[in-house]
């Protein structure tokens, strides 16, 4: 690197130069501010503003290249309970932990963002629906199978997922795309949580079928009562009045 100007030195004569030092400082400051403006301070993921502009760019890329853009929206299940039982500091730690887990499980080009609250969005450039679903399933399992220990608390977390893809022929804004994926997420919540919803999943059958989770609770709760005495239910109340 001979002859390359050292950062605080004059590019012309190589001597120490306050102007060059100032330029360097400003450049670093600029970089730092740029990072700040697009990251979420708590989790270090990208924030909503960056999510929107990156999504817009990727959708433009889809229109140009014809490769779909994938989008995963996820929301932690019953997160309010975590905050209520263990306090907000613990809740913040959980959010940071989830962010780490997301970052560790996505691919290099994917863009992880915090949408707000306990909701996250992942932009998957050049990704089809089946591949996006595969990734979502990997994340869902990683979350539900990893217990989180923080101090003396150990909790297990799950999340609900809405997965969607944007295709070149669709007339849709970045916000519209987010809204659509968010609707699938809401459906995943409504259908019982800890699951993935998308455009090809039919709400009717799965919505009324008993999920493995419900089955597990029914069977294990009944068994766990065992021989132990339980708090009796209040004496049978009279029939409720109609609506």
């Amino acid at each position: 690197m001979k002859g390359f100007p050292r950062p605080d030195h004059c590019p012309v004569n190589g001597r120490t130069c306050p102007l060059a030092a100032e330029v360097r400082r400003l450049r670093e400051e600029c970089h730092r501010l740029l990072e700040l403006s697009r990251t979420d301070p708590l989790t270090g993921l990208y924030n909503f503003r960056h999510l929107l502009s990156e999504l817009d760019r990727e959708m433009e890329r889809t229109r140009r290249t014809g490769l779909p853009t994938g989008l995963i929206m996820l929301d932690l299940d019953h997160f309010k309970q975590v905050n209520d039982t263990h306090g907000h500091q613990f809740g913040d730690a959980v959010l940071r932990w989830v962010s780490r887990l997301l970052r560790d499980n996505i691919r290099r080009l994917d863009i992880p963002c915090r949408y707000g609250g306990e909701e996250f969005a992942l932009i998957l450039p050049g990704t089809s629906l089946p591949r996006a679903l595969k990734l979502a399933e990997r994340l869902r399992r990683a979350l539900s199978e990893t217990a989180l220990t923080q101090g003396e608390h150990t909790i297990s977390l799950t999340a609900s997922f809405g997965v969607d893809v944007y295709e070149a022929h669709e007339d849709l804004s970045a916000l519209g795309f987010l809204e659509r994926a968010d609707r699938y997420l809401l459906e995943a919540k409504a259908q019982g949580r800890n699951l993935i919803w998308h455009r090809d999943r039919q709400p009717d059958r799965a919505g009324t079928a008993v999920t493995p989770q419900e089955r597990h609770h029914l069977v294990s709760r009944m068994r766990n009562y065992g021989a132990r005495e339980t708090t009796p239910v209040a004496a049978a109340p009279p029939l409720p009045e109609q609506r």
Partner: protein
Amino acid sequence: MEHARPHRWQPPRLCLSSGKGGVGKTSLAVNLAYALADQGLRVLLVDGDLGLANVDVLLGLSATATIREVLAHDLDPRAALIQVAPGLAVLPAGSGVAELANLPPEDQRHLGRLLEGLCQDFQLVLVDTAAGLGPSVLWFNTWAQYNLVVVTPDPTSLTDAYALIKVLCRAHRRRRFLILPNQVDSEAEGQRTFATLSQVAARFLEVELDYLGSIPADPAVQQGVREQVPFVQVAPKSAAGRALTVLAARVLNSIATCQPPPAADQEEVGS
């Protein structure tokens, strides 16, 4: 359509279902009907199992006409009624006939009108539905205002009862379920069964269940089934007989104080 018809009072309609078969639902329905009639009510027991009717078998009746014939030949439904006790009439269904699924929507509406016409003569209507989650089960459950769910402590019964509640809650917007644990070893077991079901329903369906009281496992029940007589009549002092009398009184007590319920929104089932 609805507003064109003059407002007529309709007796409360109770529907017994279980999801799983073999939990003693039909026997319970028959005995509950008797116990309610014993309290001085005019009761109509409808055999809602249009595929494999059992109420008539349980009572040793021989039906001359059934719901099916009434529908097919446009008969007066009163012709099909069998008076089995002073205050109790049975509308038999007939075995081996097509399921309600095969009834086109206009026939389903016709059936609803027929039944409602028939109900006028009674003070309480009890429907015994088929096992499973077939169209007729869902139809009768949306037709009735009170959804009683019979469940035993057996995990398969719990799961099937839950499946029924989930379908009715998700696809038919029913929010009120009265749980009736059957064949329990003790009242405590009945309460555990109810607690399990209601906790899971509260968590996943956000629906609250009501406890109606439990019926103990009792040889008198089996004996009644075999001899084709209701156990509340022949063995009123048996454990099951006493529990059933209490249950009937509770049902009666609360609906007697109720206003005539509004007509339920009837949906068409299947197509």
